[in-house]
Each structure stands twice: as structure tokens, then as C-alpha cells.
């Protein structure tokens, strides 16, 4: 069964009207890169698709009142090229750059990536590290949910593409003591899913180099993007020298419980995530000087 209608509305109002009109028989699509592939092997049982790619409000990247807003239909390429995201959301720009290929990045959207709810979705990992919120509009209500909470399981999002319109993601604009970074290991350098990925946000103390706060989001370590809270706690207050980083690497290796998967065994993933954390912190704080970045 294939869809009979393909709508391309140009305002969020029109989107909501279509959703309401079709009463669950229509679903939203952004880039469609996941959907079009899934449909070939496991045909979608839906009558209509509503393409949100032509709604200008959903394609904006802007800063407003201390928060950065990224529209749901913003493509990975837009994230990579955006000076604002490069400057104030580095982890997100770096994550977006690792996705697929230029062709995929030109079309795939951050909204689609999150709603597709894979536990190692690169931009999702970055958004979780940024403690980002997702702004959702459904007919009759508006809400803000922490991105991390929308992940219910592999492929399962609390956001229903037949009812809910994701309008944007937002995260607080960083101050000078906040640093972010993304690390990813894969079997090859492009067109690859990650073996492990890591989104890092950290905040140094006002005075000195001790760590005030840290968020470490990793995948695929569980059925949803995973926050390594134990390791985060162990690092708070520490000065990030080589010894501490080594211990942190061990700590996160111990903490995570990944399964054996096609792309890597559990033991291998545990090993790699320790290296990823170490290198991530080094990179975020520019400890080694040169532009290292493992791609």
C-alpha cells in the first residue's frame, strides 16, 4: 500500500489543519531519507504524507533571548554551514557533519532524525548533550519536552508524526566557560553508522580549570541515547589532567552496558567509548593544540 496524497503546505497553520483534517490517516515527513528507505522494505500504511520542508518557519536557525532555536526542518547541511551553530552549538554542527554523506545531509533533517528515534542518531546525541528541548505543536496544544525524554526505544518516539508537529529544538546559548564537542568512531569515514558516538557538554568553573558541570551523551549504549551520569558525577569538581581523563575513560567503559551488535561487540564498544570520552574532552578544551578530531 502506498500513499495517495503528498501535501506540501507552506505555513505551520496549514500543517496543523491538514493533521486535524486527516485524523491520523496522514503523517508528517521532513527530509524523508529514513522514511523513503523504510517504505521500500516495509511499506507504510498511510493515506497521505505532509511534507514540512516548505514551511519557512521550520527551517530557521536563530538566537533569541539566550536560547538557540533550530527549526525541525533544518537540514544537516544547514547545521554544518551555520556560523551560529558552529560557534554556539559546536557539538551539533560536528554531529551533523558525520551523518551519511553530502547528499543525505542536504535532505535529512534534525527533526526527522529525532523522531526516527534511533539510539545512536548523531544529532540526537548532540541535542541530549546540550540538554535541548523539543517544541511540539499538536492541534489544540503546545508543549516543550526535553529531547532525551522523547526516546522510548529504538524507532519509538513519544512524538506521533500523525498528530504532533515538531516546530523546533532549542538549547541555551553557551557562555565562555562552556565547551562542547562530538566524537564518533565508525567502520569507515563516510556513509557509515557509528560504532559509538559521544556528545559532550562541559562547563568550567568561573575561576580556575576545575570542572563545574558536565553532560556526556553516548550511543548506541542502550535502547535510547544514554547519559553517562555516573561518570559525569565522578568528574565534577576535578581538574581535567591526563590522569583524570584516563580514569574517566575507564569509568565510562565500566558504566555503559552496550549489546553486541553488527557494527561492534560489547567489549569493543566499551573500549572505544572510553577513548572517545578522553579525546572528546581533550578536543573540547583544545588540550592537545592541533586540530585533532577523529572522524
Amino acid at each position, binding site marked *: 500500500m502506498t500513499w495517495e496524497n503528498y501535501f506540501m503546505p507552506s505555513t505551520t497553520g496549514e500543517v496543523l489543519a491538514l493533521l486535524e483534517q486527516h485524523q491520523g490517516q496522514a503523517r508528517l515527513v521532513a527530509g524523508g531519507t529514513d522514511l523513503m528507505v523504510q517504505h521500500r522494505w516495509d511499506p507504510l500504511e498511510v493515506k497521505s504524507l505532509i511534507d514540512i520542508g516548505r514551511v519557512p518557519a521550520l527551517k530557521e536557525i536563530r538566537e533569541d533571548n539566550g536560547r538557540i532555536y533550530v527549526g525541525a526542518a533544518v537540514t544537516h547541511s544547514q547545521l554544518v554551514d551555520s556560523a551560529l551553530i558552529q560557534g554556539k552549538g559546536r557539538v551539533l554542527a560536528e554531529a551533523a557533519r558525520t551523518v551519511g554523506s553530502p547528499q543525505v545531509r542536504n535532505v535529512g533533517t534534525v527533526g526527522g532524525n529525532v523522531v526516527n528515534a534511533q539510539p545512536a542518531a548523531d544529532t540526537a546525541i548532540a541535542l541530549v548533550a546540550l540538554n535541548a528541548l523539543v517544541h511540539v505543536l499538536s492541534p489544540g496544544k503546545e508543549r516543550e519536552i526535553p529531547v532525551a525524554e522523547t526516546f522510548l526505544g529504538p524507532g519509538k518516539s513519544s512524538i506521533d508524526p500523525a498528530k504532533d508537529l515538531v516546530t523546533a529544538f532549542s538549547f541555551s546559548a553557551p557562555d565562555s566557560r562552556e565547551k562542547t564537542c562530538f566524537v564518533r568512531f565508525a567502520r569507515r569515514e563516510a556513509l*557509515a553508522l557509528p560504532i559509538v558516538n559521544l556528545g559532550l557538554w562541559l562547563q568550567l568553573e568561573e575561576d580556575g580549570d576545575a570542572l563545574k558541570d558536565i553532560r556526556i551523551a553516548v550511543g548506541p549504549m542502550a535502547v535510547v541515547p544514554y547519559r553517562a551520569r555516573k561518570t559525569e558525577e565522578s568528574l565534577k569538581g576535578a581538574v581535567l589532567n591526563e590522569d583524570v581523563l584516563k580514569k574517566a575513560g575507564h569509568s565510562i567503559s565500566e558504566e555503559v552496558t552496550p549489546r553486541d551488535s553488527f557494527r561492534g561487540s560489547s567489549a569493543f564498544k566499551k573500549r572505544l567509548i572510553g577513548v572517545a570520552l578522553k579525546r572528546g574532552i581533550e578536543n573540547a578544551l583544545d588540550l592537545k593544540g592541533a586540530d585533532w578530531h577523529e572522524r
Partner: protein
Amino acid sequence: MPGKRNVLKKGKGEIMKFSNLGKETPILDGLEKVTGRARYVPDLKMEGMLYGKVLRSPYPHARLLNIDTTRAARVSGVKDIITGKDVSQHRFGPMVPDWVILPDDKVRFHGDEVAAVAASSEEAAAEAVSLIEVEFEELPAVYDPALALEEGAPLLYEEKDNNIAVTFNVHSGDVDEALAGSDIIFEETYETNQVYQAHMEPMAAVAVPGDYERLIMWLSTQIPSMSRLRYAEALQMCAENIRIIKPHVGGGFGAKFECKSHILAAVLTRRTGLPVRMVNNREEDFRAGNPRVPMKIWVKLGLSRDGTFLAKDTRIIAGNGARTVYAPAITSTACYRIDSLYKFKNVRSTGYTVYTNTIPTSCFRGFGNAQMHFAMESALDTICHQYDMDPIKLRQHNGVTPGFTSIHGWEIKSCALKECLDKAVQESNWYEKKKAPEQKGPVKKGIGVAICNHVSGNRPFYKPFDGSSALVRLTPEGKAIVFTGEADIGQGMNTAFALIAAEAVGLDVKNVRTAAVDTDISPFGLGSFATRGSTIGGRAVYEAAINLKKQLLEHISRVYEKETDQITINNGYIYFDDQEEPVPVAEAMQTISYTLGGTSLVGQGVFVPDTVLPDENKYGNVSPAYPFGCHIAEVEVDTETGKTRLLNYWAVHDVGRVINKQTLEGQVEGGVIMGVGWALGEDMVVKEGVLLNPNFHDYFLPTAMDVPEGHIYSYFLESEDPNGPFGAKGIGEPSLNPVPAAIANAVFDAVGVRVKTLPITPEKILEGLEPG
């Protein structure tokens, strides 16, 4: 306008200067490729064309109890459905008669063809396939060739006592005595895995009913002429009634020999009277293609203290898959082709090609020699390390030399192996790099070497003969067309033939082209395998061109009233000794043609090398020429992640004569990257007979971002083989043979971890660095 002085004069000790050879000649069919006009089989559209789709077995081993096509037949647009009941059950096959068109008794691998549908659209065909109801009775299956050899293993072919398709044995000299007398004995087991050719164009056929009883097939194939014979056998038709046309082919690398889907398209066409298109989607191409023969290779070597090779003993267990394509030939090649790279005095090899309930395996660039090179070149490297020997000197010491006849009677006429080693060492700065000081930090550099041999044609591949024939036609417009049955599958063969013809006749290659293979018109050609195209196909073209030239000279002599020894032809111009002004060939041809009733001149040439079928002791010279090469890989290994990166690569090849420098480089660069993919990550992961990664996101062939940070440097040495056209030998497979070993050796040099099973994954390196 080029002068006479560039003319090639043979036998006078003059330095050969070529007008067409040895240059960077862009491929002559590049224009249609860059403009998107090149037509490949999937691009063909015919009036009334039907779309064929195959129902494939979901079980690795099962009895077929019942097939019900009633619901499928009711799908709108379905024109025909065939099962084992609708076709003859006679057996045939490229090497062993274990193929049927469609089975009526059993399926033997996950993906095995069960039924086929022809419908007016892809969607209708797919829907019909999904509605065919099959009752299977699952049978116990076996997936590992070693396990399939064991007593009591499930039998794929119940009429046999075991799962061995073919056994190969050779013993020359006395291995046991030699081993007893060896100062150094080394023994190890290596494993090479199953990998997928990943040609960008999937397997494809369009079958069209011809006039009367004839059948026309447009095929993406490496073997147009040979396919015709095989499919005639399959379809129980007279071969003369089958016409095969090969348009542009999007790569083959060994996969595109005999394909079931071609035969099924043909059957559907003959039954419906309509054209039928059968093109694999990518998943099918993975699941039911012809991947590389996986091998477990046990090697035992005996050497004297001074590094002289005394004995080589090997045993190979090779996976055939569920039916036989060419794995037995590949196994035998693995057993004994490398014996003619070194001056072995005593060799013994046993190779078992074993049936398993998995994808039938077949030819892939290297043809068993690549697999054995991984084992041998890794083994030698290990010996050198253990006994503190120089890996370069060891190979120089034992490598074959010009004029040598190997233990199996292979006549090495031209050979620049020594020079390849020297050049590779020199260009890579090998000795300086080996002396490099201890490295700090987690990322370590290393350098590794491997050499290789191969054949340029393989006599035993097709029992009746090896050889080729060609026609070169010179038209009244002064344009030459080469007719050959040999197949250009993207490697630049057609351009090479045009260059050879142009050079041999004295034309400008701009006025020469090679016609597409059409078996109704083209001479018979065995096809693209065994790196035979340049040497055997090319030599036939050369002979045809020389024959054409002879005729041309006679006609010029007649028409212009000059003695033939006063005439020289160069770069499209005819020079007379007693005249300043040359005459363009086109002008002369027009005049000549008018005196001959408007005809073209056609030169015919044949090349049958004086090679032989090996005798019962596997003795006999099988190839007219043997190419050699030396590769050096420079890698860096990240000891924290286990990741290996290629930094630089040096490939030096003895090609006999450079026909086209650009396509030679292209072959080397392609072969190296293909080898990098195989060595560092490509793997067909099969669990319980099911391929888990039939797609490009989980099958890790290299992208543009996975190429070396530095360069792939290629060098070509000309040993001027007496049999090759202008001395040329091939490069298609030699460019891949040494790559995995060169990388494995470089990895060992970097981090001291010896990986003996491909691919060399980060996990294996980490495990080697910190066992457990």
C-alpha cells in the same frame, strides 16, 4: 604532422618510439560516459518489455514440497510464472553439472531461485512474487566448509557421499624429504573471507525474442561468447540461435560470468514472446551474486639457513557455496599458481572445494591467487621477522628470473620482478623507514612489502583452447574498427585494442574504435578473466592489424605504383621514400576502395599461444606471459581504537609494455583501494546461512574519504614479453594480489600484531595488543 622519423623499425636495434603507445590516452568511450549517454543493460527499454522478478528461498536448505502460483497469477499485469515444473530438469554448469534452471526438489541456499515471474511492471512482478505460496520442508544445513567435510554433515547433493565438489592435488619433487632437510620450518594457517565485488551496476539481462527460433540477449557480462555456449546448453538450444550483445558494463571484477537470472530471463522471453528485463536490486546482488571463494589456507614452508626455499606444503579448504560456478578452478589456482613466483623445488598442495548451504562463490579479481598471496606473503614476512632476515633480499633471492622454467613447467619469458623490488624499495625509501626510531604516542607507523605474480591467460580455464581472434576493418573514410569478442567491462580494453591496432597499422588512434561485442558479428572471445585481455586479445588484434597493414601496403603499392618497401605508414599518413608530401590514409583508402567495388579492407588475426593443458602431474606451461609486481604499503595504526589508515602506497608492475599509461594507473589505484577494502573491513557476514549485511551501509567498501592521506604511486616496467602485443602483459589482477599482505605486513611492522584472518579489523588489532 608527425614525420617519418617516429616510425617503428623493427630489428635494427633502434629505440622503439611509439606514436600511440605509452601515453596517457583518455578512454575512447569516455564521452558517452561523462554525458550520461552510455547505455548499460538496466537502461534498455523495449516495446512491450516485461519485468522479471525471482522468488528466492528463505531457507538455506529445504525440500520443495509444493508451489502454488494461483494467487500470483491473478495479479493484474502478470504474463508468466515459471517454477521447476515448467522447465527441463537437465543438469548443466560452468564446471560441474549441478545447476538446473529452477529446482523441483530442493533449495540449497538462502536466496536460491525458486520461481520467476514476468509482468508488465516491476510492482506487479514484485506483488506476484510475494503471492507465490511455497511449502518447504526445512532440512539441516551446513555453513562452514570445514564442518561440511566432516562425517555426518548434512549432504547438499544426496547422490554424493560427501560435500566435496572437487579435490585438487599436486606434488612435485619430494616435499617430505625437503622438509626433513630444512634448517627452517614454518607452519601457519591463514583465512581469507568472503567479499563482494560491489560492481556499481548490478547483474542485469534483457532477453528479446529474435527472428525465427533465435534469442537475443543483452547482457552485463564478462564472457559474451562463452555465455552463448553455456546458455545454449542450459536452454537446450543451438548456440548459433543465440545472439548476445554486450553494451557498456558497469564493472564486473569476476562476478559477471554465468548468471541464473540471465537464463530465467531467456526462458520467460521464449515463453511469452516478449522482451523480459531481469535486473538485480542491490540486496539480490549481494545475496545471490558470485562472491569471492573463502579459504582456510594451511601453509608449511621449509627453508635453508641462507633463505633458499626448499619446500612448500599447503592444504586449502575452500567454500564452494551451494552450487558450482568456478570455485574449483579458483582453489586449484590458489594451490599452485604462486609456485611460479618463486623458485620452489618441492611443492605439494591439496585443495578441497566444499559445498555449503551458502551463496555460490566464484571469480573475483585474483582468482585464488589473491587469497594465496595473502597467506604466502604474510608467512614470508613472519619468517623474516623470526629469523632476522631481510624480506627484500629473501624475495630477490628466491624470486623467478627471466628465462626460468618453474617447477610446474611455466615458462617465464619476460620478468622484471627483481627490478620491481628494487624500484619499490627505492621510491618508498624502504630502508630509511625501517630504520626509523621508536615512535611516541598511540599512533604508530609501519611499512610492509609483498610481491606477486599472475598469468596473462590461463590455458586450463576452457578445455578446448585458449587464444583469441580479431578483425580490423579499414573503411573508405580511413577509419578503422576493431572487432573482437573480448569484453571491455570498464577497464579500458577497447581503448587498448584501438591503440594496438593504430600502432600496428600506422594510424592515428583518433580514427580507430573498437566495436561493441555482438556475437552475431564479433569473432569468438573467451572473455575478461585471467588478466588475458591485453596479452591474448591484444595480440590477436595486433595480428589482425598486421594482416590489414600487409593488404593496405599491397593496395597502396598497386594504386600509387610504388614498391612496398618504399612505403611507410605512420600516424595516419603514408610516406613514400621518393616523395616529400605524405598522403593521408583516408585519401588513399577512398581511392583504393573505388578500385575494389567500394569495399573496406579487413585484416584478420589469430593468436593461439603455445600453451598446454597441464598433464596429470599438473605440469605444463599454461600462459603466454606472466606479469609481476611489488607493492609497499605505509600505514598508521591507532593503538587506542585499533584503526588502521593507509598513508602511502607504492606499486611497481612489470607490464611488459605500456599500452596506455592512464588506464594502467587506473587499474593499480582501483586494485589498491579494492584491496584496502578487503584487508581492512569488507566482510560478508553470514549467520546460519543468511547474509546479515546485503547493503552498502553495513558492507564497508571504501568511500573517497577512506583513501590514503598521501598518494598511491604507480610505476610500470617494460620487460617486453615476446608473446604480448608490442610486449604487453596484463595488470587487472596483479594490481590486487599483493595488497592485503602488504597491509598486514605493514600493520605488523607498526604494532607487532600479526593478523592471519581477513579482514584486519580494529578488534583483532586490539586483541593482539592486549589479549583478553
